């Protein structure tokens, strides 16, 4: 026992280094220092004679103990620094991992709202602080964020940040909590999408600078992603437009061919029948042939409306402008709808001094035709439809007035909406609700305006198309001197 004691006493302090190292790697420098002192005291108390006392007899052993303390302190310092290094490395790795995840998430973002939630998520994860996003509205104002309270000071500077529209990060200090908020406008090449505000908390200038730097790096990444989304969106738009175009062409080509070929057969065959002497002599047979012809005209008109509607919906109305006599347009419209106007009296009032109009005569003729059809549909048979054209300064006003059901105040604002049909007539008068809508778009494409006025229910209505006219001199229009 005696022979072993010196060995044990010199080994003991080394054994006591274990808790010191553990404390240093687990909890850092101060717990390790404490562990060193406690270990030294314990070694002294339990192993250095006299045992069970803090006294030490041998001065040699005092030196041993002091050496032990120094070693413990140094190694705890080294171990804790190692720990810190590891910790930093781990943090850096986590950051890199996060940033990598973030870029991956950004790469998967196809809409701005996806992007916003990715930013929010990432900032909350890496900084442990919430980020809020102020989305920009189309009028340039910012929407208030849905999540999280935002201090008043931040709200105020948000407006000025947007007005400045710079790409730099500005910081705002919330006076009540001393938290620092970073604000950055997020914009693509074409538009400002909104503003991100990040609460990076309070702290020393150095830590804030590091955080600011990180947030900036992230937002830079975000801006790049936004530009990519912008490009992708433009490509997507182009693709959709192309699809719409293809669909429209298919509809115009195939469908129009498929629908019109049988119609052409029916119409043509009926017209041949109509010229056969036996049928011409038989009143009943003739009226049947006429019914076929009328229905075909009706169907053909409906197909034309559908084709027009697809043209309009696909955004494909490009007028082919040419100087035209407005009289020709009205006459052509009346002639094309002649069969459907037989039950009405058509009166024309065309002024002598009408200027020429620079329009796509086909489109305006179609619009007038739609208005004529509506006039015939919504007025009793036998009543008069007045078609007029007059000059108003350099403009030409084409009007179609009927003596029909008129328009109520409630209905007025809905006119011109696609598929709008008044409740009053849904059951009694057939129609698609496309007519006036198509007419107004066609007229608009020609630089004209269209409006309907009615003195009230049951008092008839007047639809007017106003078109800009030629500025040619009066004598040039009507004079006979021109040779």
């Amino acid at each position, binding site marked *: 026992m005696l022979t072993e004691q010196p060995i044990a006493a010199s080994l003991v302090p080394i054994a006591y280094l274990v808790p010191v190292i553990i404390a240093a790697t687990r909890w850092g420098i101060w717990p390790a220092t404490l562990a060193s002192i406690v270990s030294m005291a314990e070694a002294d108390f339990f192993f250095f004679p006299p045992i069970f006392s803090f006294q030490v007899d041998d001065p040699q052993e005092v030196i041993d103990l002091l050496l032990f303390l120094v070693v413990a302190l140094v190694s705890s310092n080294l171990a804790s620094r190692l720990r810190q290094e590891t910790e930093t490395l781990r943090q850096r790795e986590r950051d890199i991992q996060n940033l990598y995840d973030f870029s991956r998430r950004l790469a998967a973002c196809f809409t701005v709202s996806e992007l916003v939630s990715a930013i929010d998520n990432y900032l909350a994860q890496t900084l442990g602080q919430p980020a809020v996003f102020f989305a920009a509205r189309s009028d340039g104002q910012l929407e208030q964020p849905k999540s999280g309270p935002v201090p008043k000071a931040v709200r105020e500077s948000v407006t000025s940040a947007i007005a400045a529209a710079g790409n730099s990060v500005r910081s705002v200090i919330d006076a009540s909590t001393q938290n620092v908020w970073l604000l950055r406008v997020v914009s693509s090449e074409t538009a400002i999408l909104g503003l991100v505000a990040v609460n990076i908390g309070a702290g020393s200038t150095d830590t804030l600078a590091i955080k600011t730097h990180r947030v900036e790096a992230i937002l830079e990444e975000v801006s790049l992603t936004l530009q990519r989304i912008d490009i992708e969106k433009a490509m997507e738009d182009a693709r959709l437009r192309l699809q719409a175009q293809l669909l429209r062409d298919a509809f115009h080509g195939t469908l129009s061919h498929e629908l019109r070929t049988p119609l052409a057969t029916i119409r*043509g065959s009926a017209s041949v029948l109509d010229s056969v002497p036996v049928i011409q002599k038989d009143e009943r047979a003739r009226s049947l042939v006429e019914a076929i*012809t009328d229905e075909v005209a009706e169907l053909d008109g409906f197909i034309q409306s559908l084709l027009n509607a697809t043209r309009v919906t696909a955004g494909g109305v490009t007028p082919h402008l040419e100087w035209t006599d407005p009289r020709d347009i009205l006459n052509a419209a009346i002639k094309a709808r002649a069969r459907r106007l037989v039950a009405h009296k058509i009166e024309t009032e065309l002024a002598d001094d009408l200027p020429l109009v620079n329009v796509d005569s086909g489109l305006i003729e179609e619009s007038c035709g739609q208005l004529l059809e509506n006039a015939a549909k919504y007025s009793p048979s036998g009543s008069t439809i007045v078609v007029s054209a007059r000059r108003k300064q350099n403009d030409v006003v084409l009007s179609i007035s009927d003596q029909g059901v008129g328009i109520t105040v409630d209905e007025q604002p809905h006119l011109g909406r696609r598929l709008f049909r008044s409740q009053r007539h849904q059951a009694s008068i057939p129609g698609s609700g496309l007519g006036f809508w198509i007419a107004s778009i066609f007229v608009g494409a020609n630089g004209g305006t269209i409006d309907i006025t009615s003195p009230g229910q049951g008092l008839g209505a007047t639809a007017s198309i106003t078109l800009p006219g030629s500025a040619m001199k009066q004598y040039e229009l009507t004079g006979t001197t*021109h040779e």
Partner: protein
Amino acid sequence: MNRPANSVLLIEDESKIRRFLRAGFELQGYSVIEAENATDGLKAATFSAPDLIILDLNLPDLHGSEVLERIRSWSNVPVIILSIVSSEDEKVRLLQAGADDYVVKPFGMAELLARSEAALRRYFKSATENPVVVAGPLSVDLVTRTVSLNKQPIRLTRKEYRLLHILATHIGLVVTHDQLLKDIWSGNQRDNIQYLRILVRKLRQKIETDPNRPRLLVTESGVGYRLQARLEDIAADSPPEILK
């Protein structure tokens, strides 16, 4: 009236449309040849030497405009185009490529027959024939250059007469704006359609009963003008008289 039958070649892929066209033409005393594609049509045009060709634009093997071009490379036979699409540009293109007229589907037989007759009349007209063109109440003497309405002579300016002359020599057929502008204003104002519109307006004031509702000098929207052989019925499409 006993006359040798005019022969008409139908180049049209839809058999049902050929059927009513055949019936319609045969009722009017034409003899009919049918072809269901461009290849057969071109062969028939060469070997059967028809007096008139009705050509559908939408053929399975070759586009109608191509067929028209090939026919025009060796023949002046009247060609009337049938088409579903009614774009003005295409009509003008076809007329410039040598089509005599066009009819847009769906159409009535009366319309096609009127166009056919007009095209045939122009095709067969020779110098020895009566130089007076009659359009309803209007008559135009192409030799003496006199114009009368309801047998009363009327005075036209030089340009008005020029316009009427071109339309009269194409009576019943459409004449494009381009052609009119080129013939009337050979020089500087060729592209100015406004002058043509105004000239038409003035001519109408002299020859139409109601210049606001013209029934002789009618407009073909976006394409040109046509001088009707008969007063146009405003309700359109009345059956023609049966030729015996």
